[in-house]
């Protein structure tokens, strides 16, 4: 409240002004009712928006509209290449250190000692089934895919890959594509 006069004075209610030797601050607060928790939480919106915008920009750069599925085996480290072409959606054969798979189905094993003449009967059956499906597609007027993708770990001896290639060729899949990590975009 302002009082008329030469100087402006502000009249305040007298507050606590006596400070004893042993000041019980917390007790005073509790008596006055000032010890209540402040339930107003202030969200740090600026930093949240900064974080969200950085995340959005990063993910936009990694966005892909092609949406092709590719089974990446956790045991496999793909070799890298600079001059590869884009991946096509085709049946995938995975030659891992222990197994041979067609798409996600295990069709054979990789023993430690093998020769080129060792056959994988389950793989042959699966390929023959695939060939049969493609013949049906051909009668329906859809061009069959004679290509197939092969992926293997970079330390796998080539013998294991060649064995699979021989079986593929004998079953009529002559277009073999080796899946690699694309370094041309990095």
């Amino acid at each position: 409240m302002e009082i008329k006069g030469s100087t402006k004075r502000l009249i305040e209610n007298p507050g606590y002004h006596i400070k004893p030797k042993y000041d019980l601050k917390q007790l005073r607060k509790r008596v006055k009712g000032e010890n209540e928790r402040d339930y107003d939480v202030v969200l740090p919106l600026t930093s949240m928006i900064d974080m969200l915008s950085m995340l959005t920009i990063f993910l936009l750069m990694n966005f892909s509209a092609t949406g092709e599925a590719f089974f990446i085996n956790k045991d496999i480290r793909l070799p890298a290449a600079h001059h590869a072409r884009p991946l096509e959606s085709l049946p995938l054969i995975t030659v891992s250190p222990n197994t041979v798979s067609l798409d996600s189905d295990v069709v054979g094993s990789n023993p430690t000692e093998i020769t080129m003449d060792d056959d994988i009967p389950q793989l042959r059956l699966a390929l023959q089934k695939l060939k049969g499906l493609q013949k049906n597609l051909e009668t329906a007027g859809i061009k069959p895919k004679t290509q197939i993708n092969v992926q293997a770990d970079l330390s796998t001896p080539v013998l294991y890959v060649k064995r699979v290639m021989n079986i593929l060729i004998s079953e009529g899949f002559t277009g073999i594509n080796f899946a690699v990590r694309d370094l041309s975009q990095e």
Partner: protein
Amino acid sequence: MAKKKVNFELMLTPFIDLFGVLVSFLLMTAVWNHLAILSTDTAAVTSSDEPPPVSSAKKVMLSVTVLPDRIELAEDERGTNIPHLSTAEVNKDRLIEILQDWKNKYPDRSDVVLNTENSVPYQHLIAVFDTLVGNGWPDVGVSTQ
């Protein structure tokens, strides 16, 4: 005179909602591994019982053989050896020099046969394959012999 209102409140709630939905969608469609393929048409180079067609002009057979310790490049009978830099790395620079030399000698050719010894690691096959494709020899036939 009425003062122009200069206080402007940003609508942060819909802004954050939009970002939240966008981030969720982009997380689901993000590509973490860029994959590609090196393709080969094995019908051109695998052995078969039928004899190869006889052409009037003798075609020089260009082949690259990857061995555990070196790469052998052969034009018919003439060969060149390129030792590997280490067990994990092939000597790509020297290989590129020879491939460019071949390109100068045979500008109309783009096919080469890639042979590998059975114990060679798969990464060496891919490294040589990639080098061939990137240096003017896109028609690579991988031999399964």
